[in-house]
């Protein structure tokens, strides 16, 4: 039988060292338990194996593309991997990152506001339904977001785009270099970012909410006792307590936004291979959209190039997510929510 030896704080040793060490507990494991634990262990190993396989196969299959493109893979903006053309991720990766950053810039304030509302402001009877709404928002398939973004949001956001370009055009991001027709605003990274932000909101909200709700009651009451208003309490107790959690949640959201495929593919038209920071200008691309659009059409060489893109995507989300869990687990609030 398994007995977990939890190490209690050992009393200060009085006798010679080693005299007072905890006795060794020996347990005989029955045959059925041995088999059972073997099964559990193999499931754990299977998880590792699947991940290793993903990495190995992506690397093996994309090696030829890396060989062919050399260092140019990271500096070329074009992507014509068939027939010996030039290809690289210098446009695709920044495009993906740009959309993810736009998404995060919108989702972070909204997500934190919703989390604060649910954990601090909502009446007790409304809390459960609001959590259900956020869970539902996370459960809606991304293709429904994509449909909604393409047919509902796109026609309605173009006017706003135009307004931004006109009145905030002095900000480089909103600068608009194309002729001023509404059709040139269609399919811009900005619109894709807005749609992706809606998918990121539930991630940020549900994690931040858990962290906020664990802000110590004693400190909250102390803030009130010093005459703080509710907003003052939130600002001085809840937000500082949850800061690392919010940062971690946002990075997880960033990872999700980098990997989002369908909504980005639907909205970004026409696909271009030229990175621009003018996010309102129609056309653009991302790693995921490029893969979705072309992997079934390309020959083996082209597929290898796309798999190389997939590997870069895998690596970048892995880095972002590892950083996120590091931030969450290192923080004061994170230790309590680690499970």
């Amino acid at each position, binding site marked *: 039988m*398994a007995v977990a030896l939890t190490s209690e704080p050992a009393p200060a040793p009085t006798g010679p060292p080693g005299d007072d060490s905890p006795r060794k507990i020996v347990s005989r494991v*029955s045959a*059925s338990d041995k088999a*059972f634990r073997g099964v*559990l*262990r193999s*499931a*754990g190993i299977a998880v*590792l194996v699947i*991940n290793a*396989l*993903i990495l190995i*196969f*992506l690397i093996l*299959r994309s090696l030829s593309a890396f060989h062919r493109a050399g260092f140019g893979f990271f500096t070329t903006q074009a992507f014509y991997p068939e027939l010996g053309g030039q290809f690289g991720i210098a446009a695709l990766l920044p495009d993906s990152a740009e959309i993810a950053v736009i998404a995060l810039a919108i989702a972070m304030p909204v997500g934190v*506001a*919703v989390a604060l*509302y649910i954990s*601090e*402001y*909502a009446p007790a009877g409304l809390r459960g339904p609001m959590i259900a*709404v956020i*869970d539902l*928002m996370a*459960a*809606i*398939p*991304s*293709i*429904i*977001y994509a*449909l*909604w973004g*393409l*047919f*509902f*949001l796109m026609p*309605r956001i173009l*006017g*706003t785009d*135009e*307004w931004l370009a006109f009145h905030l055009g002095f900000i480089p991001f909103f600068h608009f270099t194309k002729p001023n027709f509404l059709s040139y605003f269609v399919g811009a990274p900005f619109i894709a970012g807005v749609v992706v932000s809606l998918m990121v909101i539930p991630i940020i909200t549900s994690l931040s909410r858990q962290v906020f709700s664990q802000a110590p009651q004693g400190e909250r009451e102390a803030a009130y006792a010093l005459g703080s*208003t509710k*907003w*003052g309490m*939130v600002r001085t107790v809840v937000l500082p307590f949850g800061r690392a959690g919010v940062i971690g949640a946002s990075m*997880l959201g960033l*990872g999700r936004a980098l990997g*989002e*495929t*369908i909504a980005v593919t*639907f909205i970004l038209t026409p696909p271009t291979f030229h990175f621009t920071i003018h996010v309102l200008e129609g056309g653009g691309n991302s790693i*995921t959209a490029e*893969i979705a659009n072309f992997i079934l059409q390309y020959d083996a060489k082209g*597929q290898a190039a796309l798999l190389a893109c*997939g590997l870069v*995507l895998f690596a970048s989300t*892995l880095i972002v997510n590892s950083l996120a*869990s590091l931030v969450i687990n290192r923080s004061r609030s994170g230790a309590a929510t680690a*499970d």
Partner: protein
Amino acid sequence: MTAQQAQIAPDLTVDEVRVRTRTGSAEGSATFIGAAAAALGLVWLVYQRVLPFSGVLGFWVCWYVMFLAVYYLMARMQWDGLEARNRLASVAFATGGVLALLIVIDQVGYTLFKGEGAVRHVNFWIKSASLVGPQTTSMKIGGVFHAIVGSLEQLGLATAIAVPLGVTAALYLVEIGGGFAQVVRTIVEAMTALPDMVAGLFIYVTLILSLGLGKSGFCAAVAIAVTMMPIVARASEVVLRIVPGTLKEAAYAVGGTQWRTVRDVILPTARSGLATAIVLAMARGIGETAPVLLTAGYTKELNLDPFHGPQTSLPLFIYYAVHVLATPPYVERGFGAGFALVVVVLILFTIARRIGGRAPGELSKRQRRKLSREAS
């Protein structure tokens, strides 16, 4: 309290006045409504005159900013700065919640509304799209039965792969633990955030390119399972972890082996939580598009056999209808498929909410009835 009671109340309950703990007040509500109306009027006037072509969305964004400004000014007239800021903060956060609610309602409602034209016809549910051309405008021809069948079969297969693996991995993390388990936990966490496109690429590279299997529903199911497994594992771990330790110890104390303890105590105790985790993962799985796109293969025909030949699922049908074919009648059919998909997700979500929310070991009404029947 009626008027009569109010009249006699002061005599009877002199020192028993109930303290109102409600924070809302008439002034608060009036300020809120007043600010909303004032902002609406002001934006209506200015926005429509100065910037005539700025669209619906811009209007409401401007309205919201104006509303917050007016609300703050009105609050500042009545209360001091501290209180005004406090109220501004609560209003701003509450509107965040309302925004989330509106987005969900809008997305679900819009899909149902736009899909309604196609799903009204019975043939949409029982026919495949084999007779549908790109310009077939009549919705009385063809349907998405083939995609519904594909979705359900792929989801069933994916669940059959992902759930045993996910739950066993979660049991490993909780029941055995140790340093290696910590590594596995980290990997599972990383996998939760694996882009679904990468899962599709993985299956495409291994099963289809390397092993030479053709595109089929089974390949799609494995790809979906790769995305579902970490969700099942993480959610199950949380549920298994809150099974009371006393129950486990009791099982060990009466001589149970670990296997019997898990089978007869831990899993039944955590049943409702596990079911919720599984159903939520299924809701995620059925909506996966990117992995299916690379692995299932598109077809207009009904294919009942998931192991041979291409098999369309609902998300894949939407993708092809809206993005690849993109003719107006196909877009309408795509929205019809979206209708079906949203309905399935809503059903799964409702089931998850119904069976979830109970503490581990808490019995449902039916279980309690069964117990009392057995006892008598």
